[in-house]
């Protein structure tokens, strides 16, 4: 039982990342009708926003310490960060420690700006082109973006830690009446799950309870009618692209302490996220979220030794297997609408 609970927690955590990326993908597809294969790259850039802010906060000056030597035997250079120098070791150290949460604020304008530039500069020219063209150009853009990141940050993963207070793990089992150490779960993964829930809830609330959101939803349902009413729906959709980019970026920022960011991490999530969108139903926001969590949990269960001993390799194909089954039984996905991508 404890193993099952652990895998459910793992699945919800993985599902959080899938759901956040798939939510952004669906927002873009639902509003602009674009299949954005560069969305994984936006997730990766978000993670590198955390890396960048961490590096900015760790900017330092060097002084020579005659009592220490470097690897060549020369007097060693000792680094002192400007933040600690200006604000004192306690305050400065605390700010550096909280680099990842602070990167949330840093990443939002960065990601929205990147989203705007992507949409206005490239993607808008492909609105009326076939989906295959959109896939090719956005996939090419994803490769360009990851090569740019690799050029500046290198190919190796870059460790980016969570604040000290969230390091370590929480004994979940004791709360549920199990033996101590039976169900241990890292604090930061719980934070990630809660964060994802807040962002998903925020996006739904924004679309549901604001006038802007209402117009966007109306535009998603019937673009031409909304335009006939004199509303500039294109402008709103461009803003939605920026919001979708920010959602992917935030997912990446908070993911940085879970796995050290590397230039390729967007591609690792992209394909799975597309499967999530398709399983959820193209254009369906609740479908994307539901499918994200569902496939995350199933993937975790498929990694259990008990299941792998019966079906070796199932952990590598489970998501695709479930996608095939769902699409055979429900061709529009779990919550897909009629007419979407069926013309």
């Amino acid at each position, binding site marked *: 039982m*404890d*193993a099952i609970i*652990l*895998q459910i927690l*793992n*699945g919800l*955590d*993985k599902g959080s990342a899938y759901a956040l990326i798939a939510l952004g993908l669906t927002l873009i597809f639902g509003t602009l009708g674009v299949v954005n294969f560069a969305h994984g790259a936006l997730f990766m850039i978000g993670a590198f926003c955390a890396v960048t802010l961490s590096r900015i906060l760790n900017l330092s000056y060097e002084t020579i310490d005659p009592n*220490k030597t*470097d*690897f*060549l035997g020369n007097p*060693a250079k000792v680094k002192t960060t400007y933040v600690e120098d200006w604000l004192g070791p306690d305050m400065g150290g605390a700010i550096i420690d909280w680099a990842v949460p602070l990167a949330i604020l840093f990443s939002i304008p960065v990601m929205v700006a990147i989203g705007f530039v992507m949409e206005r500069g490239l993607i808008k020219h492909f609105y009326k082109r076939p989906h295959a063209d959109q896939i090719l150009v956005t996939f090419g853009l994803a490769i360009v973006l990851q090569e740019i990141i*690799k050029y500046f940050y*290198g*190919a*190796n*993963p*870059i*460790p980016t*830690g969570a604040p000290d207070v969230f390091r*370590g*793990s929480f004994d979940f089992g004791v709360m549920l009446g199990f033996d101590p*150490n*039976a*169900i*241990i*779960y*890292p604090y*930061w*993964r719980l934070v990630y799950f809660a964060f994802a829930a807040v962002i998903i809830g925020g996006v739904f609330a924004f679309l549901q309870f604001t006038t802007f959101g209402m117009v966007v939803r109306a535009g998603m349902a019937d673009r031409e009618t909304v335009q006939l009413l004199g509303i500039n729906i294109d402008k709103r959709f461009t803003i939605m692209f920026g919001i979708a980019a920010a959602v992917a970026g935030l997912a990446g920022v908070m993911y940085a302490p*879970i*796995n*050290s960011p*590397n230039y*390729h*991490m967007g591609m*690792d999530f992209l394909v799975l996220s597309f499967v999530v969108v398709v399983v959820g139903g193209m254009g369906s926001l609740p479908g994307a979220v539901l499918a994200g969590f569902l496939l995350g949990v199933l*993937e*975790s269960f498929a*990694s*259990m*030794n008990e299941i*792998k001993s019966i079906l070796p390799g199932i*952990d*590598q194909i489970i998501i695709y297997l479930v996608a095939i089954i769902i699409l055979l039984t429900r061709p529009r996905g779990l919550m897909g609408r009629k007419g979407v991508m069926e013309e």
Partner: protein
Amino acid sequence: MSKSNLTRRGLIKTSAIAGAGVALPTIFTASSAAAFTNEPTGGSVTLGFNVPQTGPYADEGADELRAYELAVEHLNGGGDGGMMNTFSSKALQGNGIMGKKVEYVTGDTQTKSDAARASAKSMIEKDGAIMITGGSSSGVAVAVQGLCQEAGVIFMAGLTHSNDTTGKDKKANGFRHFFNAYMSGAALAPVLQSLYGSDRKAYHLTADYTWGWTQEESIVASTEALGWETVNTVKTPLAATDFSSYIAPVLNSGADVLVLNHYGGNMVNSLTNAVQFGLREKEVNGKNFEIVVPLYSRLMARGAGENVKGIHGSTNWHWSLTDDASKAFVKSFGEKYGFPPSQAAHTCYCQTLLYADAVTRAGSFNPCAVGEALEGFEFDGLGNGKTLYRAEDHQCFKDVLVVRGKENPTSEFDLLEVVEVTPAAQVTYEPDHPMFAGGELGACNPGA
């Protein structure tokens, strides 16, 4: 009326003899011009450095390339000479290789077997490379070694740790300086026993490809010989990024040691995940839970950050060694590039020097002569103590380092500390050892 004696049969015979006569000098000329593949004829010789310049191991590839450039500089008489000054063989004079200036071309393996073979093929066929070296993956090493065997050039492997490279996939034209998975197990086992005792239960997570399999086999064998029990061995997909669902079952498996047979990004992520799940603070069977990473790389350890602290593994070489050769190499490399070399850089530098030295001693670039010079060659002064290039499998036998993630690093390079230098004798095995069975060196191929 004159009568001609010319017959059809006579004409054919005469033509054949005349043709053979005309062709004879050409045949001999062609034969002598291409006694072996890419025989150097001018004042220079071209080496092919096949390293990952893109893909997940690009940083390691960049360090390999730095080492190759340094080796070429030293071979051509530039710089301070580095380990040429400490190398026990004094055949190299800093005048290139046999008086021919060393030039090089580079290829990008992308850490993909197909791409690595294609770039090696291009360097051999288009650029005239006489020797191919480099790489950061056993899959790539095995593939390129096979290609070099067919093409008739020497392959001096870079970073490849699978037993198979000099085991079932060994080739007469291929040579490995780097250590292997068996040696990691043999070096680590006594240290693990002294640290953690003989009554331990180990759980293995293993990258699902040739290197992972052979490392798991080696570590299982060496730890079970200590009396450890192997609770489970789980293969993880090479493409996996989040290992949480593989780590979770470890918690309640009864295991008190987790062995991560992972390298590169896999190692960084699985170790990070294991530490996040509190395994290092856990107590099982009345003992502290321990994590072991059998193959360490400083470049990769950097990606795992503080998570490497206190975790044991093995490595081929480390820049903090204090023997004259290591110090000479670190000085040479450090002054040129501003940071210490990695183990990948070290093995690549050594391989280049070893090849050049073998050519010089053999007095020929012919791969068969070079191979003969390398086989059974005993040397010292390249940073690993006394070393033997064994003739039977073309594997180097030398000391192996057991290292530990440093608790209080003094710089960004100071991540590992050497716990023990395991003598070569302790990691040496018979050529017909079952873990290396199933392949034959075959005959050397000079190509052409």
